[in-house]
């Protein structure tokens, strides 16, 4: 990680009404790193994702991607630079085959540029992407209508939509939630493979055990603030983190 800081967040703050959703957060992600973000419900994790990807404008603070300021840019410009995200709530095209769901990112200016204006066989590219992410072509899964797919495939479809954009940073907002253990165990190697290919990943997650197997570092949020940051083992030893997750000793009794 000699290239240093890839994505940098500096003192970002956002309040909704009187509620401080994210309060003076600062952190960095190095190229090729997986950063996990955990925290109790309502601790501002998704707002943080929205702030980085431009869906919500911060009250103050800045985000830099490759030393370029990206705060204030509209979401599609940030995605165009290579920072993309999945959504917690997936709304694929229910009436279309799975691979047609990737036509939108495959028509983006970012992909047009990388392919020199020629897009060629988009359906073929879409099916290749889906196959790589675990849609078995032999079983015709990429051709199945999206509404007939189980949740595990829909989560992967959401990830595939991001990957179709050939991004440099992927922010996964709870892609494990709602999945069974076996579904997660097929997702984990996918994420590992992405990292091997040099992708920088930020993962918001509730499933700590699976997350800790994957991440290089983990950051804990509570009430919109950073509580702790470091390697997983270290962080879970932290007394404040244990309290935030499990409650104080008194509450436990």
């Amino acid at each position: 990680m000699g290239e240093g800081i890839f994505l940098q967040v500096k003192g970002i703050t956002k309040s909704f009404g009187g509620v401080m959703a994210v309060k003076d957060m600062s952190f960095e992600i190095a190229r090729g790193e997986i950063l996990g973000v955990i925290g109790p419900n309502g601790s501002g994790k998704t707002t943080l994702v929205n702030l980085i990807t431009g869906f919500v404008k911060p009250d103050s603070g800045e985000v830099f991607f490759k030393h370029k300021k990206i705060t204030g840019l509209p979401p599609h410009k940030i995605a165009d630079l290579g920072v993309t995200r999945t959504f917690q709530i997936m709304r694929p095209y229910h009436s279309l085959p799975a691979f047609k769901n990737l036509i939108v990112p495959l028509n983006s200016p970012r992909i047009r540029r990388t392919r020199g204006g020629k897009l060629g066989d988009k359906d073929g590219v879409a099916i290749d992407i889906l196959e790589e992410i675990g849609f078995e072509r032999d079983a015709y899964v990429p051709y199945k209508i999206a509404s007939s797919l189980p949740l595990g495939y829909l989560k992967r479809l959401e990830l595939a939509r991001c990957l179709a954009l050939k991004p440099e940073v992927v922010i996964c907002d709870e892609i494990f939630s709602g999945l069974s253990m076996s579904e997660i165990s097929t997702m984990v190697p996918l994420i590992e493979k992405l990292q091997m290919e040099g992708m920088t990943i930020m993962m918001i997650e509730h499933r700590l055990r699976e997350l800790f197997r994957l991440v290089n570092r983990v950051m804990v949020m509570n009430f919109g603030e950073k509580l702790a940051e470091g390697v997983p083992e270290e962080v879970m030893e932290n007394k404040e983190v244990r309290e935030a997750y499990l409650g104080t000793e008194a509450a436990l009794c």
Partner: protein
Amino acid sequence: MSRETSTIQRRKERLDRGIKVRTEGLYALTSWREMFYLLVPRTLLIFGLLLSPFFLEMYWQRVLCQAGIYALLALGFDFLAEYVGLVCLGGAFFIGSGAYLSGLLNAKLGWAPFFTIPIATVAGAVISTLVLLPCLRLRGIYFAIISFMFPLLTVYIIIALNIFGGTEGITALATFPNIWVDQYLILGGVIIALFALRRLVTEDIGLILRSIKDNDQAVKASGISITSYKTKAVFIAALLGCFGGAYLSHLYGWVGISQFALDYSILPIAATVMGGMGTLVGPVIGAFILTPLSEALRGFGQMRVVVYCLILIGFIVYKPEGLMNVLQRKYHQFEHWEEV
């Protein structure tokens, strides 16, 4: 026993006909029967429209021209509402800007309709798009209200500044050589617009537009500017309306503030509801039914609007999915009642 029978519920079960499934994709070419299945509805529509002038009297031929203009507007309305998620009540603005542009070009520069119509179509669409551009970030009812205001606003600007002939309008414009040109120009326009749009919505751009309607956040996260695609969609719908307007100015040889009238914003909606939202062909058929109907009801005098409204209410209450959706279902599917 009687209680039991009364609680038995029935529902309609629908199954796709085998031939419908067989005619999807390349398999349609397997036999004549399959090809006929696909061709018959399309041929009926095209020839129905193209042959209708031969069966009509002069007066009804005029009505047909008028219906064609409404059909273009309804087509644009359906496209924007169902495929992009923009409820645009600015049909009158499209008609007005197309009509005034071609009227001005004809009156001031003396250009023939052959030139003024294409120029007014494109230039009018550019103006309409630019005017609506700031409102494109609005959704649903907000966009509807704003687009509804523009025609009203323009009328008052024309009256207040007394420009473009003020309340008198611009008269003595060039007209088409005969009633056949009148009719086939608009009928050709409608048919081309209909099939072009049907093609467009299945292309990638149509897919992107539909995903903007369903889930604009995912489109933004896919690195696509939704404003640029909405702009393109509004431009396409405006092209249809402005062509209608430019044609209208030469149909009667006159333009005036009545071309910004609410009829042009409202009747297309009625035609779309009646014809079937989202089918594209439905609104066209709706327009070709409603416009003559509204003429035929002139005999009722003041009661005309009441009868007209009753028909519309009847449709909304009993067949809310619209004429075309019902017909397509009957054509493509078996239906039978099943006890639950």
